[in-house]
Each structure stands twice: as C-alpha cells, then as structure tokens.
C-alpha cells in the first residue's frame, strides 16, 4: 500500500520536474529575457562539470584542483576539429565523443603519476597540472600554431543535428526556438544522462569501492580493491564528463581561449561541490546552479544598487562580486561545512568531526 503511494508520489514529482524543466526556458525567456536563458544553459554545463568532478572528489575522495583542464581539453578538441582554424569541420557526434575520450585519456595521464599522493599533495599537483595545460594552450602558437595562443579559436561550428544547426533560430509547431533554447534542450538531455550515470555508479560495486578508498585506502587495498585502477577509473570518468561539457561549451560559445580555463574556474567548480554538498548528487546540482545564477544576479544588481543608493560607483561590480564569492566560501565553511544539501552520511561525518574537535578544544 505504502509502496504504491511512494511510487505514485515519485512519478508525480518526476512529472512536475519534467514539465518545469521543459517550459523553463520559455518562462525565463519571456520574463527575464533571453540573456537569462543563456545563463541557464551555462548552469547546465556547470552541473555536468560539477558532477564530473564530484566523482573524483566527492565519491573517491581525491582532491583535484585542476579539473578545468579536462573541460579545456574537451573544448579545444572540439574547437580544433570543428572550426576554420585547421579548416576541419567534423560533425559533433564525432568531435564530442572524441573530445571526451581525449579528456579521459588526459585524466588517466594525470592520474597515473599522482596515484601515490594524498590530500593536499594531490590538490597541489593537480593544480600544477591544470596550470601546465593552460600555459601550453597559451603558448602553443609558435613555432607551430596549434592553439592560436592567447587569442584563442574563433568561429567554431555550432552543433548540427540532422542538418539543423543549433546555432540558428528554428520554427516548430508555431513556436520560435532560438539558439539558446535549442542548446538548452540538448544540454538538459546530456545533463540528465550524466546525473543517471553518476547516481548509478554511486550505488554500485564501483561506488562502494570509491567510498572505501575515501575512508581508508589501506583497508581498501587490504580488502582486495585495486587502488590504482579504481582511482584511475574515477579520474577517467570525471574527466570524461568534463570533456563532454567542454565540447558543448565550445560549440555553444563559438569561441575558446585559455582565459576560460584558469585556476579560478577549477576552484569555482570545487566550490560548487563543497557548497552544495560533496558526494550528494542533488546537493552538487544545487551548488552548481546557485554558483552560476547568484553571481549573475549580483552582476546585474551591484552596479545599479550603488548608483541608486550612493549615486556613484564606489566599488567595481566585478571586484565586489569576487569579494562576496571569497567571503561566501569562508562563511559557508565556518557555518555549514557539510554544504547546503549534504547526504545523510556526510552530515554524520561532519557532526563527528565537529564533536571531536570540540572535545579536543
């Protein structure tokens, strides 16, 4: 009896979510304008990225501060294979998987030397790896021009599905779908795919091995878990999601440059996970959405607010935005280190850590 009730409830929630997600771009577009639909598209990209990094950090407990490198690899792979830069124009169903595989390859490449590292050491090496990738992107325009250096790559092809370019407006069933709407649905489908992948992995033999690794790697090894493979799997799958998101970003933006892939971006994605609730998929999604939307809200609010109340710009909006971001990280960790929406298990871990600390203090 309660079974069916639960199932009905689940189906209900699912339907409501599906309807909301289906009409979301139209609702947002008509109320706030298409610029905000674009922001939502970006939110979906960040959800994919955050879920990818969450496999590495949240599930397996491997602290990665250079995750953006895989996004970059995916983005550049798409850009180089679908732009006038090399005059190659391969279709997306080749370039996106290729970029993802390439990113996964880099994930494993990075993973291999750092297998023995833990915690902060791993964080700093991955950070270094991210920087190396960025420096190469920035400088590989001479003597052979591969990445076009700091200028980046322009005029990247939009994704074409069955001859229809997502870069243009199409009319369908009396509705006019602009490019940002079309990309919205594409991103949504892929995001749902990534969510399903992450959630199924979490509740599997592999997911348990990751938790074991996170909690006590020596005991995990002594239980017969192949530490090397399970770590590489986490790096590889995380990078794969990053690579997909990177390719999509490339096509959506039509332009890539090294500037988009700095350390701050890596930190931003890590912050999405931590502020959302590490290891908890709904929390990570919430964190990614919040950290994409809120800065945009701030961007549009801080300037006018100062003009209206103080009559002049006291503090540059970009400056204020970053200041608030930094403060938010600090305050959030002090007040709610487990994140906005943690899993029950994580919540317990943090409560224990806190109690231990209090007892020692």
């Amino acid at each position, binding site marked *: 009896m309660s079974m069916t009730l639960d199932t009905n409830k689940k189906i209900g929630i699912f339907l409501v979510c599906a309807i909301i997600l289906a009409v979301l771009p139209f609702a947002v577009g008509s109320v706030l304008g298409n610029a905000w639909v674009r922001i939502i598209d970006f939110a979906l990209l960040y959800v994919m990225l955050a879920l990818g990094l969450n496999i590495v950090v949240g599930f397996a407990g491997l602290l990665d501060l250079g995750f953006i490198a895989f996004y970059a690899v995916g983005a550049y792979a798409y850009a180089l294979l679908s732009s006038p830069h090399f005059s190659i124009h391969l279709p997306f169903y080749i370039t996106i998987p290729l970029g993802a595989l390439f990113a996964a390859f880099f994930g494993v490449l990075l993973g291999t030397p750092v297998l023995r590292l833990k915690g902060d050491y791993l964080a700093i090496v991955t950070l270094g790896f991210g920087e190396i990738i960025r420096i190469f992107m920035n400088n590989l325009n001479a003597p052979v021009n591969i990445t076009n250096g700091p200028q980046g790559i322009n005029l990247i092809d939009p994704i074409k599905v069955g001859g229809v370019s997502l870069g243009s407006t199409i009319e369908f069933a009396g509705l006019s779908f602009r490019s940002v709407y079309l990309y919205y649905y594409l991103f949504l489908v892929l995001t749902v795919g990534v969510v399903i992948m992450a959630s199924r992995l979490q509740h599997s033999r592999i997911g348990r091995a990751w938790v074991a690794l996170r909690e006590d790697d020596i005991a995990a090894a002594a239980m017969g878990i192949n530490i090397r493979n399970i770590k590489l799997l986490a790096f590889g799958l995380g990078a794969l999601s990053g690579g997909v998101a990177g390719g999509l970003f490339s096509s959506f933006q039509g332009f890539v440059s090294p500037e988009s892939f700095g350390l701050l971006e890596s930190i931003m994605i890590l912050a999405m996970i931590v502020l959302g609730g590490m290891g908890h998929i709904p929390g990570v999604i919430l964190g990614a959405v919040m950290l994409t939307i809120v800065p945009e809200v701030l961007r549009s609010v801080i300037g006018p607010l100062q003009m209206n109340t103080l009559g002049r710009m006291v503090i540059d909006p970009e400056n204020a935005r970053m200041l608030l971001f930094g403060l938010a990280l600090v305050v959030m960790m002090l007040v709610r280190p487990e994140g906005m929406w943690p899993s029950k298990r994580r919540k317990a871990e943090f409560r*224990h850590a806190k109690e231990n600390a209090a007892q020692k203090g």
Partner: protein
Amino acid sequence: MSLLQVKNLQVSYGGIQAVKGIDFSIGKGELVTLIGANGAGKTTTLRTLVGMVKRSGGSIEFDGKETAGIPSHAFVRHGLAMVPEGRGIFGKLTVEENLLMGAYVRDDKAQILVEMERIYQLFPRLKERQRQLAGTLSGGEQQMVAMGRAMLSKPKLLLLDEPSMGLAPIIVQKIFEIIQMVAAEGVTMLLVEQNARLALEVSQRGYVMESGRITMEGEAKTLLDDERVRNAYLGD
C-alpha cells in the same frame, strides 16, 4: 583528607553518556586502580580529570579546589599530570628534550636540572640515551621516558592510562616495576588498566567500572579475592 574528590561525575561523548555519575576519591600518597571492560568509561574519566574532555555534570575537587574552568593546558600547573594511552612520547625529540617538555610549565631551571639527574638515577638507561631520539627506544624505555617526563612536572597526582596496552609480557612486567618505583618516590597515582591482576597487585585500593558506573570498590586485596571480579576481570 583526600587529594582528589570526584562526585557524581557525568560525561557525554558523541551523544552517548559515557560516564553516568560516579564518585571516587584518592588520598595523598595512594596508588589507586580503576579497572573495567573496554568502553566502560575509564579513559573518558581520566581525560575528564585533566580537562581534555568536558564534563556534563558533577564536581571534581582537586587539592581542595574545584577544577571547572581551568583551561586544559593549565591542569599540569595545578599538579595534575597524565601519561596517555600509548605513552605519547615525542618520537622526534631526544630523550632529554622529552623530559624538558615535562618541565615546560616550570621556570626554576636549576631545580629542574637537579630533578632530571634524579630521574636519570632512577632510570640509568635514559641517561645513556639522553641524546637519542625517543622514537628509537624500546617500549619499556619509552615508558620510562613517559613516566620521567610526567614526574618532572612535579605532579601531585599522576594519571596512567593503560600503560600495558598491547605490550609484550616481559615489557608489561618492566612497566609495573617502573610504576612501583615511581610510587616509592611518593607520587600519588591513579592507574587505569586492562590487566586487572597486575594492577590490583601493585595498588592499595581499586574501583571497578562497568558501562559508565562504578559498581565495586575497596581494598585491592579484597577485590583480588572477590568472586565477581575474579570471573569477569581476572580470567579465573
């Protein structure tokens, strides 16, 4: 007149009440043992006595003064020293530096040196290994360092937490010899031990703790002969 007077002590730890209102006392010059099963609350009791764990109720009077409100690092100044479980020596400090850490809160340099010589007389092994890193010593020697270090703080009461835990029988014997040597120096001690027989044999009085409560107390000899103690803790 007792040196330590504990009344209705209660401690909660991680949502569980580990100590459920216990009373006990220790007189000057006594060696008292607290025995009990794992998780009975013995270590928690010791940690509470030196302020490492906050109590949730009850009173602890030490040397005539209530200890509530003393910051945890200041207990040693008041004459309460503890040798923690596993001895807690500083492995990367030399033997001498370890001993000096014991005298950290004191500034009577000349007197410290005199007492250090006294420790070296008591434990000649340590004199030989003065400049060696304490981590390279054997288990028995480390116990000497831990005891000597604690004595250098001039404690009125020395708490020993499971000194024999996980050690080879021959070392356990040595450790109890050391405990008796220190007792002979006139140091008051509270001993928490799994090895109930050895502990009761060297002590004057004993308390038995079971799931957060003291269930038996008395002369050590009486407890050694007690049927219930023999069955549950002495393995007879």
